[in-house]
């Protein structure tokens, strides 16, 4: 079973501690969500895993093999990032052609099919593409590469709603057709919440949560109802956040979700979503 092991990785840029003793593991055939605010250290971590930059300390292994600047390990990954590492003169169709040299399982048919689905202009230079189409080009490359590990750093950057929808469907289709490990690093949590199996939440360079998404969300719930009624119910409860709209109040509560028959009439209960959970964590609240 292939797995990437990140052990005690630290990285400092000048006076900024970008990563602080990070230890995580990416197992085989799972969709991971690497979630964090801007500047939390998500991209730095992925860049270190793919040897684009080096860690100050720590260990990186793929099935026990040292990954740092190692062809064998790097060849099993494709990283989609905001940065452009393609030559200025290279066209989209040329990049697909070249990719076959580097990724033995690169599927040109898939690349062409996806390019068509996104209306990606094939004869344009990569550097001349708009931000959205540059992202689309990289998405196509990533999925056509058939690499066992896809590291997708902000994969919907610059995409419009329609293309974002295509992307999320693609993730599911690709995973169903040929499972692989995907690490989706993003700050758009609400959008990825439905597709990620395992959450890693990073804050100020430290991993503060590393658990299956389902498990995390079992530790809280949301409740809504008329303000007066809800205020009465909330006494003694661990209120993580609340909001009022007209006479209706909604609150996020820590703890296990109650049965509906335990609730007063007029109050509705629902699962806490990942975004609400994330916001609580970022605000310093700890959902037990």
């Amino acid at each position, binding site marked *: 079973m292939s797995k990437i092991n990140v052990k005690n990785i630290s990285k400092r840029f000048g006076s900024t501690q970008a990563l602080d003793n990070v230890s995580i593991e990416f197992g085989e055939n799972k969709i991971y969500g690497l979630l964090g605010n801007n500047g939390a250290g998500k991209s730095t971590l992925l*860049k270190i895993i*793919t*040897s*684009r*930059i*080096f860690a100050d300390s720590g260990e990186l292994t793929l099935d026990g*093999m*040292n990954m740092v*600047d*190692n*062809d*064998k390990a*790097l*060849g*099993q*990954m*494709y*990283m989609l990032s905001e*940065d*452009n*590492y*393609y*030559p*200025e003169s290279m066209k989209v169709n040329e990049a697909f052609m*070249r*990719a076959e*040299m*580097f*990724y033995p399982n690169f599927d040109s048919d898939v690349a062409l099919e996806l390019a068509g689905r996104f209306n990606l202009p094939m004869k344009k230079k990569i*550097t001349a593409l708009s931000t959205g189409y540059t992202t689309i080009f990289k998405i196509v490359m990533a999925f056509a590469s058939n*690499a066992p590990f896809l590291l997708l750093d902000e994969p919907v950057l610059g995409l419009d709603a329609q293309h974002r929808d295509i992307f999320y469907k693609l993730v599911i289709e690709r995973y169903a057709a040929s499972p692989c490990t995907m690490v989706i690093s993003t700050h758009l949590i609400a959008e990825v919440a439905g597709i990620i199996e395992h959450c890693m939440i990073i804050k100020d360079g430290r991993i503060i949560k590393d658990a299956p998404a389902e498990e995390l969300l079992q530790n809280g719930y949301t409740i809504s109802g008329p303000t007066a009624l809800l205020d009465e119910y909330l006494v003694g409860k661990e209120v993580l956040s609340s909001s009022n709209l007209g006479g209706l109040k909604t609150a996020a509560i820590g703890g296990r979700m109650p049965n509906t028959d335990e609730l007063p009439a007029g109050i509705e209960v629902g699962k806490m979503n990942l975004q609400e959970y994330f916001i609580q964590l970022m605000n310093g609240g700890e959902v037990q």
Partner: protein
Amino acid sequence: MNTLRLKPAMRYQLNYMFWASLIAFAIAIAVLVLLTLLVGVTSYTDSVEIVNELLTDGDSIVVDDVRVIIDIGSIQMDFEATPGVFFNIAGVFAMMLFIIGIGGVREDLRFFLQHGLSRKTTLISSIIVSLAIGITYTLIIELVYLAFSSFNFFPSSGIRPSMSGFFRRLPAQALMYFFAWQFGSFISLLYYRMNKAAKIIFSITAGAIILLAVPRIFAIPGIIGTIISLALSFDIASAFAAGTTANVLGTTLLLLALSAVCIIGNFLLIRRAPIKEFS
């Protein structure tokens, strides 16, 4: 254990070089054919008027038995028939490989890493490919020399004394191209690894050296020229270069040593190089 994936890296670099070389050689051969035609015209006609008709306004041409001079504004090309001194095809290609070394190394480094190849692979692939290119260019350029040798377009001095010692001078010529590429890569990587302050200092220093060297190169007389000459020790460098290039073996050894220095430098610069985006 790091298993190098050299095959895709070399394939990519050779593919790029194939097209770049094809264009460059096509241009070089076109120039030579054009010159051949020009010399042919001037050799077989004793009339300046006929040749002048071929030129556009502002150009002039002087024809005698052995010499053609074309004066286009401030650029003067001296087509001297015996011995030929005007078209140093080997120098042109060495310069081209130097520029490829400068531009290619950073581009390849980024592109290869995006496609799962390590820095070590990038470096080793570039060494093998530049060596292969050096040998190939040497052979092709020798053929070009041979094909056009009767027209005496080429320099007869330097590391190309005659066609007879071809195999003896092959390593020196191939190493010249190899060194040009590796030296270009070295300069490029050195600049790439510098921080902003170092880049500014480097750029100013390099600019200053060029500005200081220009007066020396054009031998401006006077105290300034003497001071610069002494300060930069051009005479010492010239004497050293003359000593080592007087024979082919010396040239080969010098180029080998310089190439080795560049390779070591490139290794040290590339091994921990962070990958920066194209700007």
